């Protein structure tokens, strides 16, 4: 009944894990910080190439065209992402595997 091996619902089998459905406010703050760090890297690379009068590569051009910066993003897109299997089609971004090291900023067309 008590102790480390008590029969709680996560332990009594199955895949009931306790992952909160939304981010806490410090998690959201760190998420914004990571978004800004990526924005800074892209801006640095872009500025360095411009200074040398070199054209930027395909992936840099595409990123600048398609991806919003941290300030341009809506809170909804910063902390949640599209998922076709969820109710109302949104789930917390922390459900994305390796979510602190991958970029997930935009939605599929129409969402």
């Amino acid at each position, binding site marked *: 009944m008590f102790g480390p091996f008590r029969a709680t619902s996560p332990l009594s089998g199955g895949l009931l894990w306790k992952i909160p459905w939304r981010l806490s406010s410090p998690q959201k703050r760190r998420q914004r910080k990571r978004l800004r760090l990526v924005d800074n*890297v892209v801006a*640095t*690379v872009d500025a*360095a190439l411009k200074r040398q009068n070199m054209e930027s590569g395909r*992936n840099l051009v595409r990123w600048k065209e398609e991806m919003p910066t941290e300030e341009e993003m809506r809170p909804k897109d910063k902390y949640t992402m599209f998922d076709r299997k969820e109710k109302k089609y949104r789930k917390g971004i922390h459900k994305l595997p390796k979510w602190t090291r991958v970029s997930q900023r935009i939605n599929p067309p129409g969402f």
Partner: protein
Amino acid sequence: MPFFKITLIRSSIGLPKKTQGVLNALGLRKRMATVFKPVNPSTAGQIMKIKELVAVSEVEAAMTSAEMKALRKPDPGYYIETPGLG
């Protein structure tokens, strides 16, 4: 000739083999490793592949690892006197 100073901040553990391959190609083997690469579109493309993992700045000249270590070294707080001439 300007250089990109690239420091690996986040580890690539568990990321796709392609991402780890880009890091290997840049010579970033462990966290907080720093490399200098010339500013050109091909380096820029490599950085874009790993932009979530690194910190990048543009510098005028590349430094060797010995020079970077000398910058980190603290002031010893003493100096050794040499016998004067007069």
